[in-house]
């Protein structure tokens, strides 16, 4: 069922063992086979995919050289605008929205002739940790379809885990790539804020949102990041930096490269952490040590304040970002007798419960008289968390902790308790607040056979170190080779 890694597929294409159309058809066949169970895709773009694949085959037939991503099936989270193709954010308010423009990342993938097979499900406007907040469908975890895939990029994570595409793009505001990657047993990476252009990514929390790759191996993730990273004049927050070839840093150990200093974030181990998670992550740390890493405990005392600060800052930004959905220019409109009624009935019916909850939270936090106590204070906490990380990275190269405190839970288990859902992002949120890169890689399974993720955190723009550490660990273990039974 698995199609192999990007490099394997590429070699097969170059050697003409398989055509791009064949590879695409295999992906489409897998989608057809598993989608009735998984529901990872909101839309499958089969015709477009085959058309792109055919062009790649024509190129190969003409004897032209092809790039690594050419002909590779990829899934795109449905909050990245694709010109002429519906982009819904899994929201009723954008159910029929067709963007007249292409996001920078999907343009880059088009330019690289990657084959987009469809748009993947998500929590509405990327707000959630289980993909249950989608207005259209609930995505299942391929390891146990009664369980959630995590979120908000649950569709992308599940699609990659279920072999419906080779790689996928997600977006991560507080853990929305890393947490579902952890729950679905795949690699998920959130790059440094500003490394990947946000142009065309429908905004949730603008100062936190970052696009990143899902893959079944660290190398595939590095190849995908190579294609999407880089300065974009259309995004004023994008960083003007040289992008190295991330695959260059994929070394099997740390002994030959001058060592690696790893810091365990003390505060992330303790109450609320599943015993199986603790065990697997501790074992993974021992593995890193065996590979030549020097490991020590590092305290980030303000780490735990990340969650409350995040639930002020992200909803505040979201409350403004989502104000544009007013039925005037595009998207859903509920006709009404007057303007205010049109606004209220459109937004009342167009947005789901969680989105409305966050708009209310943010509106409240920014209101006169509350701004200082909430938004401003949260920004101060953000600065303190950044300082904690700065101090930590003065001592170590990489920080390590669990990605998620628990493994995948049953669908419906937490939908009535938003706070327990919010707690799932405890480990990932501080990384977004500090704008740092983080990666989640498979590091074991719990007693029910559900995947566990190890989170590695790097300093600003040190994706090189992250890839190195992640790759060395991955190559020394077998976790990433496990496949879900899809039952």
């Amino acid at each position, binding site marked *: 069922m698995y199609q192999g890694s990007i490099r394997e597929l590429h070699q097969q294409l170059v050697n003409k063992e398989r055509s791009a159309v064949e590879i695409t058809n295999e992906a489409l066949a897998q989608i057809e086979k598993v989608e009735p169970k998984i529901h990872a895709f909101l839309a499958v773009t089969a015709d477009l995919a085959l058309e792109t694949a055919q062009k790649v085959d024509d190129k190969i037939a003409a004897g032209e050289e092809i790039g690594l991503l050419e002909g590779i099936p990829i899934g795109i989270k449905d909050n990245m605008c694709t010109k002429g193709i519906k982009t819904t*954010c899994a929201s009723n308010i954008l159910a029929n929205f067709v*963007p007249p*423009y292409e996001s920078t990342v999907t343009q880059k993938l088009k330019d690289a002739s990657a084959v987009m097979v469809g748009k993947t499900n998500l929590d509405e406007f990327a707000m959630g940790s289980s993909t249950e907040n989608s207005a259209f469908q609930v995505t299942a975890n391929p390891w146990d379809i009664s369980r959630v895939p995590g979120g908000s990029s649950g569709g992308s994570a599940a699609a990659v885990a279920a072999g419906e595409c080779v790689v996928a793009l997600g977006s991560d505001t507080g853990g929305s790539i890393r947490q579902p990657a952890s729950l679905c047993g795949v690699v998920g990476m959130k790059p440094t804020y500003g490394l990947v252009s946000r142009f065309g990514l429908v905004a949730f929390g603008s100062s936190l949102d970052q696009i990143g790759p899902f893959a079944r191996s660290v190398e595939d993730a590095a190849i995908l990041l190579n294609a999407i990273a880089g300065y974009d004049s259309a*995004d004023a*927050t994008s960083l003007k930096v040289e992008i190295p070839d991330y695959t260059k840093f994929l070394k099997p150990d740390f002994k030959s490269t001058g060592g690696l200093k790893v810091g365990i974030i003390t505060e992330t181990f303790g109450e609320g952490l599943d015993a199986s998670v603790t065990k697997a992550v501790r074992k993974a740390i021992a593995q890193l040590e065996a590979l030549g890493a020097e490991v020590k405990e590092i305290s980030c005392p303000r780490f735990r304040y990340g969650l409350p600060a995040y639930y002020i800052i992200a909803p505040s930004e979201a409350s403004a970002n989502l104000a*544009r959905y007013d039925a005037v220019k595009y998207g859903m409109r509920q006709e009404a007798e007057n303007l205010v009624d049109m606004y209220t009935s459109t937004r009342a019916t167009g947005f789901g419960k969680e989105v409305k909850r966050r708009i209310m939270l943010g509106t409240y936090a920014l209101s006169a008289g509350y701004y200082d106590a909430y938004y401003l204070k949260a920004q101060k906490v953000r600065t303190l968390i950044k300082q904690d990380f700065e101090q930590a990275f003065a001592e170590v190269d990489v920080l390590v902790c669990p990605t998620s405190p628990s493994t995948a839970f049953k669908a419906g288990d937490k939908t009535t308790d938003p706070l327990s859902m919010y707690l799932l992002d405890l480990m990932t949120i501080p990384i977004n607040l500090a704008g740092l890169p983080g990666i989640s890689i498979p590091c074991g399974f719990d007693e029910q056979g559900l995947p566990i993720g190890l989170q590695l955190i790097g300093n600003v723009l040190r994706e090189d170190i992250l890839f190195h550490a992640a790759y060395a660990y991955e190559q020394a273990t077998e976790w990433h080779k496990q496949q879900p039974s899809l039952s």
Partner: protein
Amino acid sequence: MTTSAPKKTEYEAIIGLETHCQLNTETKIFSSESTKFDPDNPNTNVSPICLGYPGVLPVLNEKVLEYAVKAGLALNCQIAPYSKFDRKQYFYPDLPKNYQISQYDLPIAEHGWLEIEIVEKQNSEPVRKKIGITRLHMEEDAGKLNHAGSDRLDGSTYSLVDFNRAGVPLVEIVSEPDLRSGKEAAEYAQELRRIMLYLGISDGKMQEGSLRCDVNISVRPVGQKEFGTKVEIKNMNSFSAIQKAIDYEIERQIEAIENGEPIYQETRLWQEGSGTTKSMRMKEGSSDYRYFPEPDLPPIEVSPEQLKLWKSELVELPAQKRHRYEEKLGLSAYDARVLTDDRTVAEYFEAAVAAGGDTKQVANWVMGDIAAYLKSNELSITEIALKPEILAELVSLITKGTISGKIAKDILPELLTKGGSAKELVEKKGLIQISDTGEIEKIIDEVIAAHPSELEKFRNGKTKLKGFFVGQVMKKSGGRADPKLTNQLLSKKLQG
């Protein structure tokens, strides 16, 4: 609006202006569409970015920053080395994102002033006053609503929205409450417009809405420290409307106080037709715009080097020019004001003086015949064929006595429309002044001989007839006889 009974209390008005000024950049503040004013083709200069589509991002047009800093410098402001954009949130259908990208607590420029100058009459002493500038900040303009069946959203059957204006760059300039009359406020607004035009950063067209002024006004008895209740007035489309609206509002408020009626904190609309203000809406507390820093735009940092460069690019501003014209060129305050009102006129004047024209005479020609010609033909001074060097030449021909002022006036229309050298034209047309005593005497003799009865009347005491003889001599000489000499010689001859 005058009350019959004399007022016992004297009042003063406290007035501040908030001015929105569109910057004339080629493209919008955060996207690359044209800023062209084009109400006949709605929604043509738009893009997903200025329409606030999902996922799009703003990128600051660097020209906007440059223009705003230059405006700030021209208004003697402190330029913030570190400033930022904020989101000002409110729902309105002309605002695509339902928030406006503006500047809140760290504006690009603060703590400035501008000098207004009021000259009542041609020869009166100017009254000068410094008006404080609280702040100047950058922001995006909203679109425009066209309401069917009403002039407002409320009560209209439907409304159409034109987003051509959405995203046009604005600077908002807030004055201190230093103004005391409609005249001062109108002069402040005009001086602001002049400065923008001098800097070349705005077209300042009030009719098209590229310069918009809102007035805050209260009155209080002279000597009272506390301010009265502040009223906002909107919808003035000209400087005279600003003046009239304020003068009306001052009277209205004083009358209300005198009659023991309350003054409400409200927004009132100026109605040009009736010359009155009308209540539009009450202000119930201050609006909560839920400002917060715009996360899509990095903070703005202006380096000392950049600031120095922009400073060096500033032109001489109207107030500086007025002072120089008075102090260095010896012109009256009134003349200095007229000449500097339009930068191109001032530059024309200066070029003519630099080419050797007598300052006062050049000034008179520019403010007199040339200005009249420009006005009647609706031309700007840069469009006429008469170059400043030729005006200087023409003036020199008069001062040297080569031609009379009358001849100069006669040939001016041809120079204005066709251009060319004044001297050559005078020569070609044989218009050089006759300054030879003998030649003029000869003409006088002929004139006297031809009008014996007039001569007799003159000699019998009707001395007013001298003018008649002067006219005849001028006529016979084709206007070329030196008028001064003609006068002298004629006096002698007529006495007999």
